[in-house]
């Protein structure tokens, strides 16, 4: 799967998870940029991404994802 496609899909999932349809997100976006991106929404975001791609991240991966770029990279590694 192409990284560009992954990013756009994850952006969509973020907007749904954080309930902000017009949220501006790039690979560099982190939780510090989005007030609603707290620890529980982080878990919900990862769970939604896992469901979308039929993959599973372990706890260490989940806790180490700091940016959208990290998550995209994680998805790319699991799906390629």
């Amino acid at each position, binding site marked *: 799967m192409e990284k560009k496609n992954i990013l756009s899909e994850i952006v969509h999932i973020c907007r749904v998870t954080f309930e902000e349809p017009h949220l501006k997100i790039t690979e560099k976006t982190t939780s510090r940029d989005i007030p609603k991106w*707290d*620890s*529980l*929404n982080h*878990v*919900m975001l990862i*769970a939604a991404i896992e469901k979308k791609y039929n993959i599973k991240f372990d*706890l260490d991966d*989940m*806790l180490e994802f700091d940016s959208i770029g990290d998550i995209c990279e994680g998805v790319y590694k699991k799906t390629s």
Partner: protein
Amino acid sequence: MNKYNQKEISLNLIDFYEYFARKNQLKYSYDDDIFWVRNAPGVWPNWTISNSESEDFEKVVDWNIKKVIAREIPAYWNVFPGISQYQVIDRLEGAGFREIFRWKGMALNLEEFEAQKNEVTGLEVRLINNGKDMDHFVDMLNDILLDANQLSKKDMHNFIGDKKFLFFLGYLHNQMVSTAMINLRDDVAGVYMVTTLPAFRNKGIGTAMTNEALACAIERNATRAVLHASKMGEPIYRKMGFKEYNLYRIFWLVGKQYR
């Protein structure tokens, strides 16, 4: 000694929540197998804890999972170490819970411990005894450590001048940079809420704060210290002499309605 430490690491945590709940008149329940404490939504603490020590634990867990789903007890579930830990985890995961943290249970014999002199230049550690400092403590903790569930200043003011819960603030050149707290249960001091502002990490402040808290506990006749270390904190505590005894695994039932 191992079994004693393992038990104390668990009992100090339950004692911590129970005392917090009683002082703040929160709803809580404690039987042999399950402990839970509730606060308002979004306000710490909201925890369910299971003691996984008996072999036929499944019925108790299944019954309480239903209560979580019905939102009668909190959706954060701390699975204590024990012979049934993996069976409990299987059941939680089957019901939609997801592991969100892991803490290492650690202990230190204070009778063999020598608190190190504070070597961080300009660091002053204060025992909190007034409302203003307590408010600062709450603000710092909410900012650094807690996000989805925040401490309330009103709840914490009930502990100003308390003899069992002792709270500390670290000031570096008069700027507030760090927190720590201990819970005294008999002769065991539980260490909790050790945080340092991100910009001030890796300077020895966490170590200095823990040292000061332990020195305070020793003055109050504590002979042992216990804590639950995150991945970030573990190397600091190991260097101080804390040893690992068990593993606590925290799960959350994933869903907007379970925040």
